[in-house]
C-alpha cells in the first residue's frame, strides 16, 4: 500500500511540472484532486483478488459456536449440578468414571484441567465459559455437539460443583455462568499479554 501511495504522489509531481500543467491551471487542480482521492481510496482496504465467497450471517452463526470469556455468545438455557449429575451418569461416566475422578481409560475432571504437577492447587481453567465451551463443542467424545444447551449448563454446573467452585443448587445460565470466578483466575501473569515482536522476554517467560 505504501508503494502505491508513493507511486500516486510521484505521478502528481510529474503532472504538475509537465508543460500541460503550466498552460492549464484548473486542469492541474483537477488532476491533483483526483490523485489525492486515489490515494485515499487505497487506504480503505478493498479486496484485491476477488476470490472466496461471502457467507451469509446464518452460515457464520452455525459455525461460530465458540464461547468467549464474557459469554456474549451463550445460548438461552439453564441447569444445576443436581440435574447435571443425572446426565453425567448417562453420557459421561463411562469415560470419566462414576464420580468424575477418572477411569482406566480417561483422566478425571477433578481437579479440572490441571494435569500439571499440582504446584498450584485447584482447577487451572481460567473461565467457567471455557468449561461450557469445551463440553458443548467436544464432549461426549463419541458424539461431540450432540448435547442440548440445558444439558451443557447442567453438566458444567456438575463439573464445577465437583471442583468446589459452586454449590449443587446454583443455577447456571447465560447471565450467571460468566460471573463465576474460577479459583486461579487472578493467579496468572499477565492475563492478556501484549505481544510485540521487538520486546525482550520478561522474567518468567524464560526458559
Amino acid at each position: 500500500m505504501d508503494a502505491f501511495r508513493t507511486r500516486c504522489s510521484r505521478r502528481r509531481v510529474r503532472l504538475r511540472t509537465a508543460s500541460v500543467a503550466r498552460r492549464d491551471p484548473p486542469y492541474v487542480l483537477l488532476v491533483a484532486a483526483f490523485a489525492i482521492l486515489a490515494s485515499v481510496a487505497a487506504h480503505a482496504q478493498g479486496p484485491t483478488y476477488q476470490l472466496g465467497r461471502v457467507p451469509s450471517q446464518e452460515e457464520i452463526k452455525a459455525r461460530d459456536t465458540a464461547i468467549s470469556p464474557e459469554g456474549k455468545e451463550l445460548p438461552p438455557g439453564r441447569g444445576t449440578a443436581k440435574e447435571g449429575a443425572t446426565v453425567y451418569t448417562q453420557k459421561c461416566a463411562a469415560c470419566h468414571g462414576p464420580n468424575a475422578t477418572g477411569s482406566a481409560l480417561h483422566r478425571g475432571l477433578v481437579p479440572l484441567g490441571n494435569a500439571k504437577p499440582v504446584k498450584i492447587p485447584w482447577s487451572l481453567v481460567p473461565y467457567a465459559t471455557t468449561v461450557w465451551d469445551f463440553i458443548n463443542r467436544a464432549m461426549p467424545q463419541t458424539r461431540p455437539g450432540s448435547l442440548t444447551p440445558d444439558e451443557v449448563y447442567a453438566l458444567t454446573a456438575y463439573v464445577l460443583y465437583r471442583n468446589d467452585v459452586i454449590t449443587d443448587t446454583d443455577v447456571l445460565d447465560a447471565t450467571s455462568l460468566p460471573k463465576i470466578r474460577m479459583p486461579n483466575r487472578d493467579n496468572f501473569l499477565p492475563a492478556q499479554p501484549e505481544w510485540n515482536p521487538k520486546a525482550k522476554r520478561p522474567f518468567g517467560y524464560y526458559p
Partner: protein
Amino acid sequence: MGSHSHSRRRWFLTSGIGVAGLVMGAVRSLRGQTAAPTAPPRDTLAYGQPSPFDNTIRKAPGQGTAITDTALMTPLQDLDGIITPSGLHFLMDHVKGIPDLDPKKHRLLLHGMVDRPLEFTLDELKRLPSVSRVYFLECNANSRPLHGPNGESVQLVHGRTSCSEWTGVLLSVLLKECGVKSGASWIVAEGDESNKYTMSIPLGKAMEDTLVAYAQNGEPVRPHQGYPLRLVVPGWEAIRAVKWLTRINVVDRPYMAWHESGNNADTRPDGKGLWYRFELGPKSVITRPSGGQRLPGHGFYEITGLAWTGRGAVRRVDVSTDGGRTYKEAELQQPVLRYAHTRFRYAWKWNGEETVLQSRCTDERGEVQPTILEAAKNLGVTPDYFYEADHFNGIQPWKVNPDGRIQNALF
C-alpha cells in the same frame, strides 16, 4: 527383518493405522492364514520408498504421555541437513483418530471483526499468491529431561521438533482481503476435528508471518500434520499451529479455549501461572554422536546437530568437547534461515578418554542457551523442576565413556 515387512511397517506407521494395525497383522501371519492384501495406498514405485536397509522411523515416547495422545517423535539422530521428511515429522495429537477431510468439501471461513467475512475453498486458496518458507515446529513439552532408558535417546528427549518447507498463503493476505476492522487485536483459529481444537493468537503475529499452509516439503500436508490446511506460526510453540484449519475469527481478546488454558497453562514456582508463552527460546542439541550410540574407537568424528530459536535466526553455535569448560564456534550450514532448524558441524578427534560433548546456541537477539543450572538459578528452582516444566531449553551434555558408549549426562 526382511524388506517386505520393513516397508509394510513403515507404511503402517505413516498411514496412521499404527500399532493396532501392526499387532493385528502380526497375529494374522502367526496363525498362518493368508494375509488380506495389505497393499500400501500407492505402489511402492509410484511413491518411492527408502532402502530396505534403512530403518529410520518415528518412535513413541514410553512414559509420561496421556493415554489419549498419539505421540511419535522425529529420529533426529538419523537425519541430515535441515529438512525433516514429512513421514518423519513429529506428532503429538490430543485427538483420538484423526479427521478424514475431503479437500473438495473443506472450507476456510474468516469472519468476526472484518469488513467482509469470506469463505475459501482449497482451490481458491491455491490461486492466491503463495510463499514457501522453511520453518521448524516444536512442541512446548520438547526436551523435558527424562529418567531411565528413554532419557538416553536424542529422539525421545528432543524429537518433538521437526522442520519443513511449508507452502501456502500468508494469513495477512487473507485478512487484508477481508479487511480487518480497527479495534481487533487477536484471532481465534479452529481445527475441524472432534475436539474443536481452538487457539488464540495476537493479530500482530497473524499479520506478520503466520502462514496458512497447504503443502509440506513440496506435497500436500500429511493427514497427521493437518491435511488439507495447517496454520503455521513461525517460532512459536507448536500447539499454536492449528491442524485441519477451518475457521479464523477476528476478535478483540483471547478466548482462553480449552487447549490453550488449563492443562496447557504453565505453573511457576512462585505460585503464579502463565497463560501464554509463545516464543521458544534458543536451543541446540548434538544429534551425532548422541545418547545410546557407541563410538567404535578413537580417531576423527564429525560432531553434528541442530539449533533453532523462536526469536528468528541462529547467530552462532558453540561446541564444547570438555564438558563446558571451553567452547569453540561450530560451522553453520548455509543459508541460515529464520525460524528454521540450523545444522551445525564441528570436527573432532577423540583421544579415547572419557569426556562430555555439548552445544550452545546464541540467537540473533543475543539470547544464549543456558545450562540447566543457569536456567534453574534464573527461576529460583532446583533443576528437577524441569522434569515437569514446558519450554525447557537447557544445554544437553552427552558423556563419552572410555568404551565409546554415549550417555545422557544432564544429571
